């Protein structure tokens, strides 16, 4: 692949950059200069005709994709997240979202139905009483947030892989894509191997009580082998698909695999 050159013959590269910096708004300019000069970013970008932050972003995005592949390679479908005794549970378990608790979705449990779409045999929607009848298991695991903090909680529900089997999902598909009721629309793709992990759970209870609004009523997907943001709450629908449909945080730059 040949690289497109943005330079006009006879134009001094440095003068060109200098001139374009002058046209930037003051704050951007200072950040651009500070970023370029102090961080050795130039070294990393050797080979680029024009040093700008978008080429750094493109490189970082490429490395993040590479990291997805590495993590998928490292992922052992049989490796279980450590479990803890009840005494280890973090109290109170933190509420965490990109909005305040007051703005958390209020889902009407009686009207709610889990929609199932995509590569599945049975696309019937599921009411809460129907889902509650499925065999449930409890697991006490550590929730690790992308921010670095962690907390231990107790989640009860049905293994997602059992549900996928029940609805006749094509488990050779690449993703299960979840859509949620959070404001501004939350969604997140889960790679199929993780979806089939024995600890990946459709969660209906927290600490043996019906999942409260704060933790994602009526249904959360608990994935102890992923960072917290890959554990969608207030789930409205799931789609089994081969297409990468992006996600709320993934699209903003969080690493998509984000496996633990």
């Amino acid at each position, binding site marked *: 692949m040949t690289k497109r050159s943005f330079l006009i013959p006879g134009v001094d590269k440095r003068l060109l950059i200098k001139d374009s910096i002058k046209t930037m708004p003051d704050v951007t300019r200072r950040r651009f200069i500070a970023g370029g000069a102090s961080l050795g970013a130039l070294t990393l970008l050797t080979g680029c005709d024009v040093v700008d932050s978008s080429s750094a972003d493109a490189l*970082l*995005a490429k490395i993040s994709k590479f990291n997805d592949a590495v993590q998928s390679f490292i*992922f052992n479908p049989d490796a279980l997240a*450590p479990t803890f005794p009840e005494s280890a549970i973090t109290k109170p378990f933190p509420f965490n979202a990109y909005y305040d608790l007051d703005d958390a979705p209020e889902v009407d449990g009686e009207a709610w139905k889990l929609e199932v779409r995509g590569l599945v045999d049975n696309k019937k929607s599921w009411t809460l009483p129907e889902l509650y009848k499925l065999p449930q298991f409890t697991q006490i695991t550590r929730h690790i947030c992308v921010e*670095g903090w962690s907390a231990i909680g107790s989640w009860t529900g049905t293994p997602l892989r059992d549900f996928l089997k029940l609805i006749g999902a094509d488990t050779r598909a690449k993703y299960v894509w979840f859509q949620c009721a959070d404001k501004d629309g939350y969604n997140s793709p889960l790679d199929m191997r993780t979806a089939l992990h024995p600890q990946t759970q459709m969660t209906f209870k927290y600490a043996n009580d019906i999942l409260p609004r704060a933790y994602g009523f009526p249904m959360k997907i608990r994935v102890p082998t992923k960072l917290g943001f890959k554990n969608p709450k207030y789930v409205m629908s799931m789609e089994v698909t081969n297409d990468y449909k992006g996600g709320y945080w993934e699209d903003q730059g969080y*690493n998509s695999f984000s496996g633990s």
Partner: protein
Amino acid sequence: MSSLTVSDEQVRATPGKVIQPVWVRVMHWTNAVAMVLMILSGWQIYNASPLFGFSFPREYTLGGWLGGGLLWHFAAMWLLMVNGLAYLITGFATGRFAKKLLPITPAGVIHDVRAALTFKLSHDDLSVYNSVQRVLYAGIIVVGVLIVLSGLSMWKPVQLHWLVTLFGDYPTARYVHFFCMAAICAFLVIHVLLALLVPKSLRAMIIGR
């Protein structure tokens, strides 16, 4: 015999012996870039959920926000780890670690610390490290290994849960990671200061002699 031929004697007589072989210099500066990127992006990540009652000033963080900091951190980690691993292997295989960093004796360290604090520690022969240098250089290698291991255990706490167990648990690994960073920053300050005080050591790390 042509006048262009160089005899063995002449080669040996080349002024100035190589203090820092080229592999050391390349890996040193690669590590310097990787470390700075890791520290500044690490501060960005720290600020998302500070362990202590302070945050790092925004101007000294990399990435603009948590997501950007993470992208930098998980990109620069490859540079740091691959270069660090190559350095460890070459250091042991060539015998450079054994030759330069050993022996470290308590008596020698005490003697040289005293000499350093009274400005009597000489740097006549840059190819021989004094006891203070040996302790610091060997120590920072250990810290480097620890920061990578604690970092890996935070990155993959399920896949590498045995590594997490080594540190106790996930939150402890986070603290270990932080204090290793602090140790590296402290080392960096002293290291740069001393390199500037003894400029020929800086020259040796750039041109080798």
